[in-house]
C-alpha cells in the first residue's frame, strides 16, 4: 500500500513534522509517516554559493523510495538548483521524491520577529505543494490554491494549504 514518508534531513523540528502528518494524510488520502534516515549532505554543499544542490540531493534520495511510495526530504539547509539563486523546494512532475527547505521560511531571516506558527504553516504549504508535483499536479493560477507558484514567502502567506477544486479532481 502506498505511503508518504517525510524524512528529516538536518532538520531540527521533527515534532513540527509529526504534527503535520494528519493534515498531509488528509490532503492526499494516503498514510503519512515520519521516517528517520541518516544522510550526509556535506557532499552537496557548494562553497561558492554557500548553498546545497537540491537536484543532487534528490538523486541521492531516489534509492530510499519503496515501490509506490512518495518521499519528501525536509531540511533547514538553504537549497539551490544550478540555474536559480534559491528554491523553497523541488520535485519532479510525477516523480517519487520531493525536497523542501525551511531555511527561507523563517521570519527572522526577513528582519521580523520569529513566528513558529507561521513557519509551520509555510512549511506545510511547501511540503503539500512539492508532493502535489510528485502526484502529477502542475502550477495552478487560482488564487489561494496550494499549487499556486510562489517565489516569496509573502506570496506563500497569501495561499492556503488546500487544493482548489480543479486540482483536487486532477489528484483523484
Amino acid at each position, binding site marked *: 500500500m502506498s505511503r508518504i514518508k517525510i524524512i528529516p534531513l538536518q532538520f531540527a523540528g521533527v515534532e513540527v513534522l509529526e504534527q503535520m502528518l494528519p493534515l498531509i494524510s488528509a490532503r492526499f488520502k494516503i498514510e503519512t509517516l515520519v521516517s528517520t534516515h541518516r544522510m550526509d549532505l556535506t557532499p552537496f554543499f557548494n562553497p561558492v*554559493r554557500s548553498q546545497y544542490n537540491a*537536484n543532487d540531493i534528490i538523486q541521492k534520495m531516489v534509492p530510499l523510495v519503496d515501490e509506490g511510495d512518495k518521499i519528501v526530504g525536509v531540511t533547514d539547509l538553504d537549497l*539551490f*538548483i*544550478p*540555474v*536559480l*539563486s*534559491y*528554491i523553497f523546494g*523541488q520535485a*519532479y*512532475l510525477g516523480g517519487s521524491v520531493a525536497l523542501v527547505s525551511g531555511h527561507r521560511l523563517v521570519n527572522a531571516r526577513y528582519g521580523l520577529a520569529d513566528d513558529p506558527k507561521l513557519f509551520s504553516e509555510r512549511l506545510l504549504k511547501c511540503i503539500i505543494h512539492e508532493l502535489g*508535483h510528485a502526484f502529477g499536479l*502542475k*502550477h*495552478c*493560477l487560482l*488564487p489561494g490554491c496550494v499549487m499556486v*507558484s510562489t*517565489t*516569496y514567502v509573502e506570496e506563500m502567506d497569501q495561499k492556503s494549504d488546500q487544493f482548489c477544486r480543479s486540482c483536487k479532481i486532477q489528484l483523484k
Partner: protein
Amino acid sequence: MDNNLSILIVDDELSVRDSLSNWFIEDGYSVDTAEDAKVALKKIEAFNFHIILVDIKLPGMDGLELNRRIKSINDEAVVIIMTAFASVDSAVQALKDGAYDYVCKPFDPDAITHIIRNASKTIHLSQENISLQDRIKSLVNVEDIIGESEGILKVLEQVRVVAGTDSTVIINGDSGTGKELIAKAIHMNSSRRFFPMVIVHCGAIAENLMESELFGHERGAFTGAQYARKGKFEMADGATLFLDEISTISMKMQIELLRVLEAKTFTRVGGNREFKSDFRVICATNRDLQAMVNAGEFREDLFYRLNVFSITIPPLRERTEDIKPLSEHFVKFYAEQMNKGTKHIGRRAAKALNNYDFPGNVRELENLIERAIVIGTGDTVQLKDLPLDHVAAKPTWESIQEMEYHHIQGILEKYDWNISRSAKALGVDRVTLYSKIKKYKIEKNK
C-alpha cells in the same frame, strides 16, 4: 495550469537544461532542450517555439549568433539570452539583434518567473491582436445589416453619419429590434474600431454592484475585494462604452455617470488615484427617456448630455418589407450552423410570418426561424414548422372566390396534394376539384 506555449532551452550544461525544464514543466509549458546551436537550429526549423532561452556561451556558434539565426527563421519567437558572465556590451548587442530580454545566471526565481510571464503575455497579446483583426474584418459593416424598408435605411444612413464623429448616441427601440447591433455598427465604422466595444447591461447588474462594475475597485475596498479590479470606464479607454438599458440606472448612478462623462476622469471604489479614460458613449433604451425626464425619473442634465444624437429603430411590424429578407438571412444562417439543407420558406409560412405583428421584433423572428430549422425536414420551412397556425388561419381575403381559392389550397397541402382525399374532405368529386385547381391556377407549394 496548462498553457499552449512551448519553450526551447539551449544550454550546454545538462544540469541547467534539466533544472529549467522541470521548472517550466511545473508551470504547464511544453519544453524541449538543445545542448548546442546546431541541435537548436534543427529543432527551431522543425517546430515553431514561442520562447527560446539561449545561453550566451555555447560550444561552436555562440548565443548571440544563434539569436540572429533564430530571428531569420522565426521572427516571432521570443529569445531570452542567459549568461553566467554579465556584460553590458553583450546585453546591448543581444537586444539590438532582437532578443526580448537578458538574464544572468543563476536567476532569482522571481525574476525568471516574471520574464517568462511577461513574454507569455506579449505572445498572447500578439496572437489576440491577429485574431481580433480577423474578427474586425468579419464584423458588422453597415452594408451587412439586413433590411430594405425605408425605416431601416434611414437608421443605416444615421449610423453612417454619426460613426465618423465622437458624439454620444442614444439608440431607441423596442426590445429585440437590434439596438446592440446598431451600436456595434457605429463602433465598427468609427475610428475606435480597433479597440473593443465594452458592453454594460445596466439592467442586469444589481444596484450595489453597479459602482464597482463601472468604476472598478481597489484591493480591500469592501469585504471580499481581495484584489483590485478594473471597471468598465477603465476598460473602455480608447474604445466605445455601450450602456444598454440606460433607463434602469439609479438616480445616484446617474449623477456619478454625468460627472465622469463631463470630466472623463474617475477614481476606483476605495481608492484615491485618479484615472483618465477616453471613451465614447453609446446607450440604448426601450423606454422614452424624455417622458422619464418629464416624470422626474431620469436626470434632465444627463439626458441632454447623452442625447447628442438619437437613432430610433422602428419595430418590425412597422417595416414588414424587412421580414422576407431577414427570414431568408436567418434560414441561410441557421441551416449552415446546423448543417441542414433548408433553403426556402414555403408560401404559407412566408405569409404567416408577414401577417404576424412580432411583439418580440427581430429577435422573435430569429428564434422562430431557428426553431423551424431545428424541427423542420426537407429544404423548405413549412407553416407547420412555425408556431403561427393562428396567424395563418386569420383570413385576410374578402371575396368568396378568394376564400375558395385559399381554402382549396390549404386542403391540398394538408393532404399532400392527394386529390382523392382532398376532394373527399372538400365534399366534392375529383373532377370538380381538378376543374377548381385549373380555374384558380393553384400550384403545389415549393
